[in-house]
């Protein structure tokens, strides 16, 4: 009986551990703020605020302030880790319109990683004149 009891308790603990995984902690990602839709189509060309899109003649044309316009329409904002096209990208769960004036800026986002590719935003900071400035959107309701 004494030999079997520890085995039983160990089994219970092992399964209890798998049933209740640890809550995910906040992460902080530093990179560049992007308009996720245009960036998704052509990451290298559309990581800035001016985007390349096909014109009427089929040739690529520059669209100034495209990221600002897209996020102003509500297309989700994102952050590219490290600011290099092709790196891990997160969609920010925040009102995109509130970040439209900060597109293509260097940013630092803190929040909870959810759904595999999103960050439930707790804090957004952008670098302006070498300083981190808190631009976290306020409560929208």
């Amino acid at each position: 009986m004494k030999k079997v009891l520890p085995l039983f308790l160990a089994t219970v603990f092992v399964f209890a551990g798998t049933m209740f995984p640890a809550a995910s902690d906040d992460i902080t990602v530093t990179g560049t703020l992007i308009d996720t839709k245009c960036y998704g189509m052509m990451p290298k060309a559309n990581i800035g605020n001016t985007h390349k899109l096909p014109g009427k003649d089929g040739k690529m044309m520059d669209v100034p302030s495209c990221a600002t316009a897209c996020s102003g329409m509500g297309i989700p904002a994102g952050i590219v880790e490290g600011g290099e096209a092709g790196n891990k990208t997160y969609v920010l769960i925040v009102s995109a319109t509130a970040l439209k004036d900060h597109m293509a800026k260097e940013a630092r986002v803190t929040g909870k990683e959810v759904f595999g590719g999103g960050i439930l935003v707790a804090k957004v900071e952008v670098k302006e004149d070498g300083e981190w400035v808190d631009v976290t959107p306020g409560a929208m309701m």
Partner: protein
Amino acid sequence: MKKFCRGSRAMVFIVTTFTGMMILSSCADGQSEGGSEAADPQYSVGDTVSVAGTLVDTRCLATNWSNMGMDHPDPVPTGHTGEACARFCAREGFPVGLATGTKEGSRVWMLLSTPPLLSDYMAQTVRIRGVVRSEGILTPLRVEAKRPDGGWTFVI
């Protein structure tokens, strides 16, 4: 000695039964939500996929899975009215998602589209054809909402 043996056997029986029940239970969970690792299809970046599910407000759902419908029992920020919260959040520009199951932990695709365009279809069943951008992120090419008569209405 006999008593000890009987006790040991009983304990081994309990441990085996408990372990078996736990394994069966975890398998059943995976099947019911349709999102177990074994059953859930694996996608690669750039794949064009067709998925169906419910349109959800990712902001409130990420906080509490009970916020899956149109009205939210636990809206963000706490204390605000949760009536038609999903529509409100989509109109405010919070990303819209597609939950492929109703059970907590089901796969949620975050949609790279304009949330206000989907705001009138929140909490409805939709089917989406789109391109996988990265894990959990989808650019919709076509979104259709299910009608009460079983047909599909083109949304975007």
